[in-house]
């Protein structure tokens, strides 16, 4: 009896968490197909998770935008611009590099937030604009060439390449996990965090309940820009250079990861840790394709797309079923009354 119950609740949990299921499925598939090559932590899984963390850090920002019912298409380009600016300035002084990089994220995030909250522009369009602008600047700064990190920038290189806990967790992954924990806390235990859900759930209602909707939107998009900048700085260290063409198309992968991670496209609900499994899943797909070596890399997009549609379908189905149940309940009540 007790056993059955736990089994049932576990199944229920997994049903609500498509991403964990998907990650488990990928791992099983990887193990069956490539055995120890896949399972080798230090040589394979470690790298997959490090790459996922790089994407995931900006994914947190995008996920917050999803919570308020918005989108952020600019993160990839902002990260690329950050990496160029960081590399450029770090060659003078690492501190300048980091401050400059974060400044880029702050400015672009703020512009997004300001335009969206103040002028009521669709986030999709506004962030598309900043995406183009950021990418343009990144390419302009050094005539499309990347900027290599010179002597004296060891700190940034370390952020990108070293690990903690005896090589168990890479620094990007550690940063990612700390940020997830931080934002989980903020979302659950602060006025600001709860207000984010309120804005996403029903903006007008939030306004009536004295939530400062505009300020929340501004803050969320600024945070998203900042997180993209953190990703960009780590990326600079990882590549040993500022790369203006980095992260192209990542915004789409990230949005897919957010939805696969279980965040509602309607906003107003969701857990931030879903993004972890979302990005890890997406990275596992590309890992399995790379390990094979003969399958076209385009299969990554195809599979991500299919899983994304599946996740969307599950969401739509759940909403539909809830509505049906509510409708039937109302109908029964009406019949009982009459």
């Amino acid at each position, binding site marked *: 009896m007790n056993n059955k119950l736990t089994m049932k609740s576990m199944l229920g949990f997994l049903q609500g968490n498509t991403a964990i299921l998907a990650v488990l499925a990928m791992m099983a598939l990887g193990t069956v197909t490539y055995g120890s090559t896949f399972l080798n932590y230090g040589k394979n899984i470690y790298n997959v998770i490090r790459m996922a963390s790089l994407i995931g850090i900006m994914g947190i920002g995008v996920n917050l935008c999803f919570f308020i019912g918005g989108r952020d298409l600019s993160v990839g380009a902002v990260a690329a611009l950050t990496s160029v600016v960081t590399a450029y300035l770090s060659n003078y002084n690492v501190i300048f590099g980091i401050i400059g990089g974060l400044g880029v994220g702050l400015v672009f995030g703020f512009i997004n937030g300001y335009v969206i909250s103040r002028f009521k522009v669709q986030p999709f369009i506004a962030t598309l604009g900043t995406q183009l602008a950021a990418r343009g600047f990144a390419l302009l700064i050094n005539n499309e060439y990347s900027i290599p990190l010179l002597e004296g920038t060891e700190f940034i290189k370390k952020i990108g390449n070293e690990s903690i806990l005896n090589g168990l967790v890479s620094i990007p992954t550690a940063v990612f996990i700390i940020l997830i924990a931080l934002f989980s806390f903020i979302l*659950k*235990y*602060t*006025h600001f965090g*709860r*207000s984010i*859900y*309120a804005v996403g*759930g*029903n903006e*007008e*209602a*939030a*306004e*009536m*309940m*004295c*939530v400062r909707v505009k300020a929340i939107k501004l803050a969320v998009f600024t945070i998203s820009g900042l997180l993209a900048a953190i990703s960009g700085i780590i990326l600079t260290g990882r590549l040993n250079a500022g790369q203006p063409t980095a992260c192209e198309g990542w915004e789409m992968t990230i949005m897919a990861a957010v939805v696969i991670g279980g965040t509602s496209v309607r906003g*107003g*609900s969701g857990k931030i840790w879903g993004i972890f499994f979302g990005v890890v899943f997406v990275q596992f797909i590309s890992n399995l394709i790379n390990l094979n070596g003969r399958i076209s890399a385009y299969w990554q997009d195809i599979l991500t797309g299919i899983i994304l549609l599946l996740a969307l379908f599950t969401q739509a189905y759940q909403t539909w079923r809830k509505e049906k149940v509510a*409708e039937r309940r*109302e*109908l029964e*009540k*009406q*019949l009982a*009354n*009459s």
Partner: protein
Amino acid sequence: MENNNILLKMTNISKTFPGVKALSNVDFTVNRGEVMGLLGENGAGKSTLIKIITGYYRRDSGSGEYLFDGKPVNPTNTLAAQKLGISTIFQELNLSPLMSIAENIYLGNQPLKNGIINWKKMNEDAKKAMLDLGIDVDVSKPINSVSTAIQQMTAIARAISTDAKLIIMDEATSSLDNNEVNTLFDVIRKLKAKGISVIFVTHKLDEVYRICDRGTILKDGKFVVCKPMSELPKLDLISYMLGRDAREIVNKKKVYNKEIQENETYYEARNIRKTNCRLNGINIHIKKGEVVGLAGLLGSGRTELAKVIFGDDQKYIGYTFLNGIAVKFRSPHDAVKNKLAFCSEDRKAEGIFPYMSVEDNITMPQVGKLSKFGLISRRKQKKITERYISKLSIKTPSSKTQIRDLSGGNQQKVIFSRWLAMEPDMIILDEPTRGIDVGAKGEIENIISSIAKQGISILYISSENDELVRNCDRVVVLYEGKNVKELVGEEISSESIMAAIAAGKS
């Protein structure tokens, strides 16, 4: 003399929107611990007044005075109003749908412990607040999973938790059943006992008499009267709301043709109910070539019924028949295929394509029929358009003019033309003369009577009683989702319609 008993005092309030004077010189007072009913038909200015009280709108500068708790105030947003002690519970409940009951009560005021939200205390407080209102409920449930009544109570609990002195309830009972309404009224009495005032906005007159101490009536943005409910008989109340004295003479009456009642029944609906209680078992039939009027106050179910008939709303119980054969339309498209037509009351939103030409607007639903090999025959399009321009005397520079450049009356004629071009057997007209000047009104009414003569059945929905008197062969009076009275031919008059509405359920 200043009376300490007055909580809210508004004098000479005006509000102008571009092109419209929504309120002109309105007076409104609410005493402490009083339930004040705010009454009026659509467009009377109730919601504008409420939005000024709650700071959502600003009154016209220099107009009037707004005193709350004895002090002149001027809230600039809902937050400021709430700080003064004014809380609003809107018709569309403004709650955050995915959050718990407890969070909805305390959002923005969550109890803190060491600077972070204390969930345990919040849930306990919420439980207590709901119990105070006589509701025992699991407060950690998301608000969209509980009944509307509990959502309502949550909103009230929220208002109380912010130390409200005045709670405004805008159509608070519109989605509650009888028991839930009783609970709500008990709560309102408790609020009164605490000295909290309530402004109760509703279109359900019975409820006004049950709960309100006084009533203020607005009409077309103007103050009409404010009286204790005990000195305001229902018939008076209705004539104040509709702005027409029951004794007023109706200029012209439709000549009654008895033979129409001998015609075959074209459409019939039996025992139509909706789950939200907006329709409570309506029976209606329409004969061939007959003009049937639907009378009733706002919210009596007129528009809802029209939507059911036209297949725009499938969530109902009941039977519908076309020419004696049971049918159920699955979509408006389905209804159109069965030769029904519907002119919506909201012409701008649901009727016209503003940037398209008169010609395109008329022939839009027929482009398929007018096309050959996928290409539209402009010649046929033009022929149809010209026929209707002359038939309904539409005043337009040319058939290529964009419809938004036409006057309201001519736009309405274009929409009529569109439906007539489809050769329907029945047309539903929802407020066909809204926003149309008097001259054009007459023309539209003539068109209506001439199409009825061609054997087309017409369901005529209007809140202007004398319009129904001028146009209808039979008038069905709705009250709270039920047909309470049927007036045929000579019986139809402004007075008889009003009397039927006032009599209500009887």
